[in-house]
């Protein structure tokens, strides 16, 4: 029996969440973007009125303003978007435990096992669409099909607030007639090459000789061929296995240059506290800690390391970050910017392997302290409780770590492996070209 797969895409996501929270801007062009301090901020998402007037994702703010002088810019609020993303997935999970996030605003659902009690795939899709609109005030477009790739195609086909079904009967009429670039992972470099081969539509890819695609694109050519033919058998992975985002980080340009390790430790602590608080707020732990360092001549580098026990504890993250810094900086020059990032995220309810040399009792205490501090800060503001160290330099520790740029990175389709028939090679392929 064919699988029943849904791909749910929240439309103009960041902008829609902002629109919901700003009823005073209803119907007006709005774009989420920009880093308040940097003049070179970019548009992350535009709402539909702004899109119609020519505002596009990735545009510089000044370009957007030029295209559409009446556009309203609002700064991004990642925590809010993460929360609504989780609320949406809570709805999806009422229909199946197979919910695989793809970035913050998209998910695949395998509802094959739910058909007997929840009705047809189409009626499930309609119900989800209506519920997200009613309960969260957001619109989604949903593709329904027998594989993940066509389901994704379907959610792009008609939007916003729509459901498209791609069946074995209609896929040649709908998917095959679309331009090749509408297929997942056909990017700009690939499309140029396809055009020189006389391949313009998805159908052209599907009916091309696999040998030709292999010789031109390597294994990725075969992957595209299986995508286009609807034979991709990649499963929808269970919800718990993966977090919808890759990492949470925070960086800051310090109020004065940092000249010694005390300065650095203080700022790394501040950054780690804010990163750890956001991990906890969104129920993640991570097993990768990274730092970013830029000196006062603007030379910069990043370093990261894997840690054995995933964490969301402020002190631990700060310790890893400090170690990384010590191992990699020789103090040629004072430092102007620092960043801390935690990656390889997983839900905090997930189990992990303890080890003999880690003091779990201490970790539990540290986590309890962190959670207590979160509670206090939520009620009385960040400065209501500070580490003693912060009082050595209130000028430096007064920097607002929370307001700085928040890095959130989506996952790739191939990260959990693939079932296209060439999965073992895919992982290497994804770095290449424009994948």
């Amino acid at each position, binding site marked *: 029996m064919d699988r029943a797969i849904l791909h749910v895409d929240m439309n103009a996501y960041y902008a829609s969440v902002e629109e919901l929270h700003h*009823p*005073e801007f*209803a119907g007006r062009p709005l774009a989420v973007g920009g880093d308040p301090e940097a003049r070179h901020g970019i548009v992350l998402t535009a709402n539909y009125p702004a899109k119609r007037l020519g505002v596009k994702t990735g545009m510089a703010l000044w370009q957007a303003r030029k295209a559409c002088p009446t556009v309203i810019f609002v*700064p991004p609020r990642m925590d809010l978007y993460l929360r609504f993303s989780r609320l949406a997935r809570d709805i999806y999970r009422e229909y199946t435990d197979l919910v695989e996030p793809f970035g913050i605003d998209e998910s695949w659902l395998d509802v094959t096992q739910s058909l007997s009690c929840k009705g047809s795939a189409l009626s499930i899709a309609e119900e989800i669409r209506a519920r997200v609109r009613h*309960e969260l*005030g957001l619109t989604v477009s949903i593709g329904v099909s027998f594989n993940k790739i066509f389901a994704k195609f379907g959610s792009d086909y008609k939007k916003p607030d729509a459901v498209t079904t791609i069946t074995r009967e209609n896929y040649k009429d709908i998917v095959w007639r679309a331009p090749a670039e509408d297929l997942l992972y056909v990017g700009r470099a690939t499309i140029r090459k396809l055009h020189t081969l006389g391949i313009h539509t998805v159908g052209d890819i599907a009916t091309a000789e696999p040998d030709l695609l292999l010789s031109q694109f390597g294994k990725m050519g075969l992957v595209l061929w299986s995508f286009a033919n609807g034979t991709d058998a990649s499963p929808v992975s269970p919800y718990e296995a993966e977090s919808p985002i890759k990492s949470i980080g925070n960086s800051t340009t310090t109020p004065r240059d940092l000249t010694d390790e005390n300065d650095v430790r203080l700022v790394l602590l501040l950054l780690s506290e804010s990163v750890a608080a956001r991990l906890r707020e969104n129920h993640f732990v991570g097993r990768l800690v990274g730092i970013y360092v830029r000196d006062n001549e603007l030379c910069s580098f990043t370093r990261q390391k894997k840690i054995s026990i995933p964490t969301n504890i402020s002190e631990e993250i700060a310790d890893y970050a400090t170690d990384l810094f010590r191992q990699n900086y020789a103090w040629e020059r004072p430092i102007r910017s620092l960043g801390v990032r935690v990656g390889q995220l997983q839900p905090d309810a997930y189990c992990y392997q303890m080890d003999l040399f880690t003091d779990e009792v201490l970790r539990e205490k540290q986590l309890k302290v962190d959670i207590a501090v979160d509670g206090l800060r939520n009620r009385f503001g960040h400065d209501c409780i500070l580490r003693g160290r912060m009082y050595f330099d209130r000028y430096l520790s007064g920097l607002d770590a929370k307001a700085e740029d928040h890095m959130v990175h989506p996952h790739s389709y191939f990260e959990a492996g693939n079932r296209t028939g060439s999965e073992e090679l895919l992982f290497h392929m994804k770095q290449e070209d424009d994948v």
Partner: protein
Amino acid sequence: MEEAKNKVYVDVTAEFTPDGFLRPLCIVWEDGVRYEIDRVLHRERCASRKAGGAGIMYTCMVRGKHIRLFYEENYKWFVTRNTDEGC
């Protein structure tokens, strides 16, 4: 960023029922006046386009009038300003 002006966060006293439901008992309006909730008529997950936000909406009976009280996804309570005078 200033919040929408139709959205009024309020103090709420609530209780958990033995079967795990969160039930609001009274609210304190922004002028400090306390309003007992006589009855919760209805409870559903819902977005408020007027106030701007989403959460669990309680339709409540207060002094003979219906009000809509939202328990927002950030764990705060709000009321839409002009659902009713004063409340």
